[in-house]
């Protein structure tokens, strides 16, 4: 049985507006000939452009292949084929015999997968050399964190008001220094501090980030005394990535998760995008985060999970005192779509959510945001700013690009909200009312 791909999932595979426009033109079903699909989840077809081009897509990974000479990958033909499949899945018949070129692509993919999962390691890792490299890196990070500490002290000595008047070079210098020290994970926080200096409530916002940055310095310098899981969290935050063999050893467990929503944004350096997919485990009221990056034209987002669905997922959680970030141990194959389901296991009111958040913060003080699912909320508008009010009449500010759309979606009736809590406000991801889901990213 072929995988169903939703329009939203296909949308995320399209890198830019030009590709989208071009692909859409080529998505008409009658333009595609010799369409077919295999039980290995490949689809293919032929389209006439300057010549006849053959395109194919491997659905579980949204891997695109095409015979056209374009340098841009994925090309418009392959994307067009995918869009055609999204609208007319039924028109792709299962066939036993694939065309020659498609066979080659399938073989190439097989070989690549075999190589990746090959039991014998390509190169034996020398633990001594690895430890030596790690020690050298830690030394570099030590130096970088030391510089950051001095920089923070200078900032406090001169005052935040002075920092607002200074040019960006003040922040640029420390960013460069942290890049040299291979502590690039902190660049986003430095940028956040700089941005916070110019917000409406700049004092409160910038103090918040200043306090967090100092906490990182404080914890790093005393890392040997930390709980190993918190230490692992700190290392990930600073920019130590886990190697593929370390990731492979992470345990996984299959549970049912709701896909609540996702948020796509630009990376600070402007060279790529991030995607946060938020999942919800209803029994334990725990969020899980699938974080993906797309850097230029080199890497692309993997297939997104369909929104608003409950499905069994095998997740491997990154080591942390409060496990949240995870990766899929295996791609779900087929999903039974249901359009009238409402996520379960929501918090009854904000107090419960905040207590939950406080408890998680006590284990992981480095946590900056997490996803909440809260039920029986209603909207309240004060000075053109929109708030969510819970059953206990407690009120929290909402952040959303166009609050009129949210108001039109839920009106003055109760709704269920999935949102990112960042300590200040709730960034709306999705809402449900009368079995209808509305997404806002």
């Amino acid at each position, binding site marked *: 049985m072929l995988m169903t791909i939703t329009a939203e999932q296909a949308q995320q595979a399209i890198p830019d507006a030009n590709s989208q426009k071009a692909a859409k*033109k080529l998505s008409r079903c009658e333009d595609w000939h010799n369409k077919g699909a295999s039980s290995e989840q490949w689809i293919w077809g032929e389209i006439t452009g300057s010549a006849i081009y053959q395109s194919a897509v491997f659905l579980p990974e949204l891997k695109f292949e095409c015979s056209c000479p374009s340098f841009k990958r994925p090309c418009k033909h392959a994307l067009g084929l995918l869009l055609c499949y999204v609208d007319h899945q039924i028109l792709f018949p299962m066939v036993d015999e694939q065309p020659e070129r498609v066979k080659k692509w399938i073989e190439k993919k097989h070989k690549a997968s075999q190589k990746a999962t090959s039991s014998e390691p390509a190169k034996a890792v020398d633990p001594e050399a690895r430890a030596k490299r790690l020690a050298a890196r830690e030394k570099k990070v030590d130096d970088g964190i030391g510089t950051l500490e001095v920089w923070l002290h200078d900032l*406090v000595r001169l*005052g935040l008001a002075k920092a607002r008047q200074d040019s960006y070079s003040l922040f640029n210098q420390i960013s460069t220094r942290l890049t040299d020290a291979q502590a690039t994970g902190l660049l986003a926080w430095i940028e956040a501090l700089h941005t916070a200096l110019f917000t409406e409530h700049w*004092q409160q916002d910038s103090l918040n980030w*200043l306090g967090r940055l100092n906490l990182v310095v*404080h914890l790093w310098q005393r890392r040997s005394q930390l709980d190993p899981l918190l230490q692992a969290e700190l290392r990930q935050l600073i920019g130590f990535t886990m190697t593929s063999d370390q990731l492979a050893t992470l345990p996984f467990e299959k549970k049912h998760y709701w896909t609540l929503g996702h948020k796509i944004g630009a990376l600070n350096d402007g060279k790529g995008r991030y995607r946060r997919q938020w999942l919800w485990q209803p029994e334990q009221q725990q969020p899980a985060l699938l974080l993906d990056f797309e850097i230029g034209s080199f890497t692309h987002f993997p297939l997104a999970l369909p929104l608003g669905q409950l499905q069994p997922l095998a997740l491997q959680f990154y080591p942390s005192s409060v496990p949240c970030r995870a990766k899929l141990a295996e791609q779900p194959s087929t999903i039974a779509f249901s359009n009238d389901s409402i996520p379960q296991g929501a918090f009854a009111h904000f107090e419960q959510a905040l207590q939950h958040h406080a408890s998680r913060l006590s284990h992981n003080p480095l946590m900056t945001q997490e996803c909440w699912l809260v039920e029986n909320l209603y909207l*309240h508008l004060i000075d053109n700013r929109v708030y969510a009010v819970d059953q206990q009449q*407690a009120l929290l500010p909402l952040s959303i690009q166009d609050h009129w759309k949210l108001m039109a979606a839920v009106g003055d*009736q109760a709704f269920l909200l999935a949102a990112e809590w960042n300590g200040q406000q709730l960034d709306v991801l999705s809402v449900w009312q009368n079995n209808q889901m*509305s997404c806002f990213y």
Partner: protein
Amino acid sequence: MSTFAHELGLQLTLGSQFNKPLNIPSDVKALLKDDITEGDKEQYLLQLLSAWTLYQDAGFQPVTLSLDHPRTISRADPESLIVVAEPVQHIFKRYFAEKSERQRLNFPKILWTYWIQATRQQQGKIPNALLVDFLSALYSDQRADVLHLLSSRALWLGQHNPEWQWTAAAQSITLDATGQLDAATQQLWLSADKSVRVLLLQRLRQLDPMLGLQQLQLVWDSIDAEQRENLVQCLAAQLSEADVAFLQQVFGTDRSRVVKQSSAYLLSRLPQSDFYQQLVSIFNQSVNYQNSEQALEFELPETLLKQLKEQSLDGKGSKILSGNQQKTGEKAQTIAFLCSLFPLDCWSNLIADAHQCFSAIKKCIWADSILAGLRLAIIHQQRQDWATTLFQHQQGLLIHHDATDEQSQLLALLSPEQREKIMLLQCQNFKSGHYHDSTRQVWDQFFAEQIRQVKNLDDSAQGFISELLADECLTFIQTHDKYTHTCAWLKDFLVLCASPQWMNRHLTHFEPDELPLWHTRQQLTQISP
């Protein structure tokens, strides 16, 4: 904690170099003592800040909303389930998702009308998910048409956005046992802004003309001239003898010239009014026809002019004459204004044959003024017979700069068959001459609709329409001029008239996305009756 936070914030904002003493309350000190180690001043402040940040984050307290009566929360919202048929929703979702704001505003009015009609026939409401886009992009003169499509959610939304407050007029109007407005509607009428009042009065006049008049009288003294003008124009719906006294009073006593003029137009349609008799008298005094020479004379004696001036009937500020005609002087303005008021029966009584009447007018030295006024009189008095004669006399020419609204209103008086004839004549003129910007609106409004009513332009269609439109549409597509204003009617034509066979024959390289409206039309056709 808040005093401490304030002091800490102040210290860090100013910088430690100012050496301002930091007073930490004893309870905070006790709370933080395990987290803070003494060091230099900056380190001490930073550590306090880190601890405070964490405590603040973990101990976040939401503000409690103070409401006198806590709201009861219910999951039931049956209104939101009443949505228009799925295909329509799908089309509009697709449309709003793909178009930029600029392109959205170019969404042809005729397609709006088409969609509104389809939704009405299905007794649907605007789906909640489309409300914001719909309300933002709707043309203001179509508000009255969509009131019955607004759900309670739309009304609720309108209460919160000043730009959409007009949606309040969609509230149901209920009458009490005595036939008067119930308290809620009465309150709405009294407190409404001008846009809501106009829409409400239009509805009231349809429901109960007398009640509408009563309600208007209720607020008349408290509203400004602009609102008085707009509201008095609403009385045109179901105008009757019962309105004479009020209109006569407005005409006689209102301070505003434009309000007086608006009431005068309505009175000119009511033979029972004194004003109507006065107009007949003025007509008889000023217009003479010499049957032998078939010549018409328009004379305004000085005494009459003075009298007209006193009554604000001199046409000042009426803007009936357009463009260069406005420079023709006060007398021309007065004649144009009077002719726009004269009951058309006066002309019929003077010259029985309407064609002869127009010929005579054309020979008169005040021909331009008289014809300009006459066109307006035909519109105000809703006379189809006169409109037909006018177009016959003009040989179907619509070209009349700066008066496209007027031309549209005149065309609207005709029967579909008559309109078709006029449009075809215009089409011939268009082919031999060139397309005039000033008539664009007329084309946009009628042309596509007209052809659609007569026939779909199929592959075998013969004659100049097919050739002309084929040429024009091909040029239109080839130049990719798809969003230009100059071809608005062509877009309409493609959306509403051309058959799929015709499109396939003539537009072989045509992509659906290059003409999304055509694609939309295909889908709309599938769901509309």
